[in-house]
């Protein structure tokens, strides 16, 4: 009853309570969910977001079935123009290399080691390239099992984008895709899991395996995470501090609709990526409600994001986004 009355008063306070609907990327779903309920408690406005996948998010908003779409994969300015959409980032996440080698807890991987593992040229854990930076660990002569996603996913896209930037051979033969025929599969050393959850489970249940997972999921599943070499040659542990260090050097550009897959910044942890929101250009009134929600989240949601393992956008990027909204005429309400 109390709740009901509280609800009534809330409804009375904000007489023009509104509802917006969105769908798309599953990766930011936990933080959006948290923001949505906090936003509802604070303002009485409803936001519905369902995690259906980036592809669906793009399709649905392109066909104007929803008020906003979420996508882990940014659309290029050219595509945005064709589809008549605006785009802005909301939050950054890190992708980590989770591993399971009995007895090894502080694995360090150089760029050469990561290249060798994904391309399948390094087949055993005791390969000198890996041992070089792990002199104190007892790396066994066991085959490396590489775990990847079995479903099409933005995480795979971001990870392969990072590989493309780091490794010319990868760029030449594979590129950045949501679904890849991994070279390790052909060697019989690859297995796949459905979703981040499936990959985490596969790593946990198969000794001598390694795979890429979102930081938030790796944290939840208590995976061992490798410390990896950044583009400046230094080694970075997968910690929120190193992720934000990377996000600072992201180089978002409002002129390009923030189009930036920010994997591989100059400094900081190298595999990080933002997730994006797409809004239809012509639905100005609904767009304003969408930006109101995200503006509120930029102001009040950083702690919620960090507690879930995401990295909030740096304040200069937030300022750029607010300016972008104003220029496009979709500035937040009041």
């Amino acid at each position, binding site marked *: 009853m109390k709740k009901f009355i509280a609800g009534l008063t809330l409804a009375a306070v904000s007489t023009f309570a509104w509802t917006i609907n969105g769908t798309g990327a599953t990766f930011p779903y936990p933080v959006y969910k948290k923001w949505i309920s906090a936003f509802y408690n604070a303002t009485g406005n409803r936001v519905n977001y369902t995690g*259906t*996948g*980036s*592809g*669906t998010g*793009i*399709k649905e908003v*392109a*066909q104007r079935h929803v008020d906003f779409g979420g996508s882990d*994969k940014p*659309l*290029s300015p*050219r*595509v945005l123009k*064709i*589809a008549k959409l605006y785009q802005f980032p909301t939050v950054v996440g890190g992708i980590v290399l989770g591993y399971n080698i009995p007895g090894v807890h502080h694995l360090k991987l150089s760029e050469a080691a990561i290249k060798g593992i994904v391309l399948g040229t390094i087949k055993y854990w005791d390969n000198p390239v890996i041992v070089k930076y792990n002199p104190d660990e007892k790396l066994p002569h066991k085959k490396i*099992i590489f775990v990847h*996603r*079995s*479903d*099409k*996913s933005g995480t795979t*896209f971001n990870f392969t*984008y990072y590989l*493309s*930037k780091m490794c010319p051979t990868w*760029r*030449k*033969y*594979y*590129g*950045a*895709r*949501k*679904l890849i*025929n991994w070279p390790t*599969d*052909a060697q*019989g050393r*690859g*297995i*796949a*899991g*459905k979703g981040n959850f*499936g990959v985490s*489970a*596969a790593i946990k*249940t*198969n000794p001598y*395996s390694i795979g890429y997972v979102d930081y938030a999921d790796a944290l939840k599943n208590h995976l061992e995470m490798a410390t990896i070499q950044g583009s400046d040659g230094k080694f970075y542990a997968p910690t929120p501090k190193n992720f934000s260090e990377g996000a600072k050097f992201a180089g978002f550009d409002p002129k390009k609709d923030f*189009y930036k*897959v920010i994997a591989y910044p100059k400094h900081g942890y190298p595999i990080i990526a933002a997730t994006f929101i797409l809004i239809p250009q012509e639905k100005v009134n609904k767009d304003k409600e969408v930006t109101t929600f995200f503006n509120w989240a930029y102001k009040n949601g950083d702690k919620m994001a960090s507690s879930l393992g995401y990295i909030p956008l740096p304040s200069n990027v937030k300022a750029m986004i607010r300016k972008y909204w104003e220029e496009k005429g979709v500035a937040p309400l009041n």
Partner: protein
Amino acid sequence: MEKIFKTLSQLSASTILLILSAIFVVLYIEAKPAIEKYGLHFLVDPRWGVTVQKNNTPNVANNTANSEVGGINVEDDDVLAAIGALSPSEEQKSDVVYGGLVPIVGTILSTLIAMTFAVPIAMGIAIFLAEIAPPSISKPVGIAIELLAAIPSIIYGMWGLFYFGPFIAKIFGGSSVNLLVAGLVLGVMIIPFMASLTRDSMKTTPNVLKESAYAMGATKFEVIKDVIFPYAKKGIVGSMILALGRALGETMAVAFVIGGVFNFPHKLTDPTVSIPVVLANNFAESSGLSLAALFYLALILFVISFIVISFAKFYFLRDKK
């Protein structure tokens, strides 16, 4: 009254045919772009989502094909196709090849493993419950089996992923998600189904028949073999067909444990994929040609189930006259 009743039941029966043909038609229409492009070669092509340049050098070095970002080959086609803005010039630079052989083989193999594992066990359970066990045992066990049949498949999937898979990997080697695990989990899923249906049909054998056989001096084994099985044959085969259908189309549980790798299994403990798993994994994120290829796969699954089931029906249930 009689007439209304007759038409009503006729109507409900015809909806089945209607739904069946509607599904077929929709699958065909959606799959058409892929059917036109790949034809029947789709059935024997093991490549899935492999980029091929127009001059047919396989796979590699199509740097200019897709939209480039700082020299990186980024796949943008599906997004453009999703919003219907793919310009024809872009379509022609490179080709993506989809072939269904790996998932087709994976589906058939996993179903075969499941049936080989499940049929003898299910028959054993049914015989025990129907003929051998006293009611004080057969009742609770029977209820337990029916409960097992009602467990949602996702639960089997999680169990397979976290406990059964690692257990099998310890015994047979290999990784914790593979063809064998998928087959066995499928088998476990269809056992209760088959067992309870078989038991029910065995129970329909009239006591007079059994008693006269015993009176002739037949042993229990002989009664089961020569009286009950022939009598309940239709029901038993029917239960197997239903179980087979379920095994062919099972998605969630298999998606968790089959491994999801587009590779032929060289041994039982290799990961591979099956048709329903490919559909579940890629449907949400696909568009354009890759979506059509998925529909083509769905159509193939539809046809496979249709052929297998009608063959089983025809072969086992034809009336011997």
